[in-house]
């Protein structure tokens, strides 16, 4: 473990830029901390934090100058690995046929700065979906291969975080190039740094670092242990597959459907949701056609339209599909949970529907149900 002083932090930006990376990370925009392109340290939300609750997110000033003193916001990294709208190819009329032009050269190398542990887990989930198995998505893969992941350990979880329940945090462990822990002790402001890959090692080697002393490891451990104990929410995941598979008619689904707007904000904000639709467009002359891929959602009717109609007409059916997929059938499909406990679907649901409360409500009457014939 190494130490980088706050006043040398800009060197990390320099080194990443010199290595040819487009740096993407947290920045304050429109009263939220979003992920966008960063020029330097000054673009980070220094001295800002967030407060989160179901359907509610507010940014607030901190009383220190922390650079990473908040948790995850409305954006997730999937925006950069799997853009909301992507042209797959285009075609131009040529004689009696047409010529196809593939889209996208090699995208620029990106460095994601400030990735949280739940987000590392989410990227791993999407890696599996897009790059695992026999069907590899070339568009995702091309971007993913060129990404440098600089993670930040979470010291202050917020109201909708539950990574501990999902076993994904708050400490960033695997699948990263570099990890940081921000330390503020009175006037002293510094970062613990670790590398997690050869590429990370290379970056570290170019930074003005000091060795951490023995006692300092303990400070970091204590900080992250404290974070573990301050999760905003919890989800009991014991036997969750059975719980949901056994309860497709639980009255709680009706209650959720009464509130659910089927607006799809949850799926758009979720870092693991990966569904898309493909649109073919032609221009007025009919000389030029394009194929686009766009994010779609199990909450939109057209998404589950098959010949003859939509298979999930009711909002109840759609909400149940979403949550059951996230927490149960995802495990059968990809061997992992589809939920990493980031809390985005809770905070960014305009109706304030809380996946952890829904699970709790379904679980609540289980023993009673088991007893009744």
């Amino acid at each position, binding site marked *: 473990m190494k130490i980088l002083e706050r006043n040398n932090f800009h060197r990390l930006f320099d080194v990443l830029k010199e290595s040819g990376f487009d740096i993407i990370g947290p920045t304050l925009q429109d009263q*939220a901390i979003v992920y966008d392109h960063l020029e330097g340290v000054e673009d980070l939300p220094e001295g800002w934090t967030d407060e989160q609750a179901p359907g509610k997110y507010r940014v607030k000033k901190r009383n220190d100058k922390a650079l990473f003193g908040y948790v995850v916001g*409305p954006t997730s990294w999937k925006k950069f690995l799997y853009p909301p709208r992507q042209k797959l190819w285009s075609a131009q009329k040529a004689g009696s046929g047409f010529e196809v032009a593939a889209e996208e050269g090699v995208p620029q190398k990106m460095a994601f700065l400030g990735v949280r542990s739940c987000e590392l887990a989410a990227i791993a989930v999407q890696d599996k979906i897009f790059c695992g198995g026999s069907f590899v998505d070339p568009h995702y893969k091309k971007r993913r291969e060129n990404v440098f992941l600089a993670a930040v350990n979470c010291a202050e979880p917020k109201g909708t975080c539950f990574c501990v329940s999902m076993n994904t945090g708050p400490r960033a462990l695997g699948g990263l190039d570099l990890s940081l822990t921000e330390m503020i002790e009175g006037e002293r402001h510094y970062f613990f740094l670790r590398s997690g890959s050869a590429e990370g090692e290379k970056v570290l080697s170019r930074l003005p670092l000091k060795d951490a002393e023995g006692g300092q490891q303990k400070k970091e451990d204590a900080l992250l242990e404290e974070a573990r104990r301050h999760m905003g929410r919890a989800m009991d995941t014991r036997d969750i597959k059975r719980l949901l598979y056994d309860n497709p008619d639980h009255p709680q689904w009706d209650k959720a459907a009464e509130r659910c707007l089927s607006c*799809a904000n949850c799926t758009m904000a979720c870092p693991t949701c990966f569904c898309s639709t493909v649109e073919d467009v032609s221009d007025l002359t009919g000389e030029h056609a394009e194929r686009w891929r*766009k994010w779609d959602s199990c909450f939109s009717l057209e998404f589950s339209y098959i010949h003859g109609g939509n298979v999930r007409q009711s909002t109840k059916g759609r909400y149940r599909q979403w949550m059951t997929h996230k927490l149960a059938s995802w495990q059968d499909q990809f061997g992992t949970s589809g939920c990493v406990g980031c809390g985005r679907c809770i905070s*960014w649901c*305009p109706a304030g529907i809380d996946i952890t409360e829904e699970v709790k409500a379904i679980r609540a009457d289980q023993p009673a149900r088991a007893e009744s014939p």
Partner: protein
Amino acid sequence: MSVATKPKLAVYKFASCDGCQLSLLDCEDELLAVAGEVEIANFPEASRAVAPGPYDVSLVEGSITTAHDAERIQQVRKESRVVVTIGACATAGGIQALRNFKDVREFISLVYARPEYIQTLATSTAIADHIPVDFELRGCPINKYQLIELISALLRGRKPNIPKHSVCMECKFRGTVCMTVARGTMCLGPVTQAGCGAICPSFDRGCYGCFGPKETPNTSSLSAWLKDNGDKRPDELVRAFRGFNAWADAFRKESEAHE
């Protein structure tokens, strides 16, 4: 395609402000291409030359507010293969449908010096309440890219890409931070059909619902949330749902629920 076989397009106006027709004229760059592909046979806003029907596609703007128009729209249907209604007036009755909630005679007596000269129906209604409609383009006004998309699709006989999902999805596509969540702003986006590209939230305004109710709009849930968390009074909720699409079923019922 030879000139003789170019599809014939007509544009009709009923009770409306002309804004949607202007969206067509506003296509500028694309307008030449449109003119190249279709014969604009009847479009008084653009040209006085009128070619007789029947027409392949008729774009209908405006709502039905007079007995005369109620008859005229029947004629439009008869001479059009495809009828596309454009804009909130044609698809939902428009802002003038606010009269439907009151007694129109009272308005007339207040506004006009000689009320007996005014012949009008008690209500302003959507075109689809009078004739079968093949496709509707929502919005106040319509989005010109949706219009071009629709015409391009009709020309090639393909399905137009006109989604019926929420405005929220457009916010997320463009990366706009949700105003409801991040500021507590009243926004109709979760119950409103996409199509504008989520313009208002990107300019610090909640969605006004110009594109009317989306598929499966849960207006009562949104109202409950606005009441409990946004401190909205019932009269504010009535006003929120009584905009350009006040007479669209879901919005009408929701506003009436708070009266």
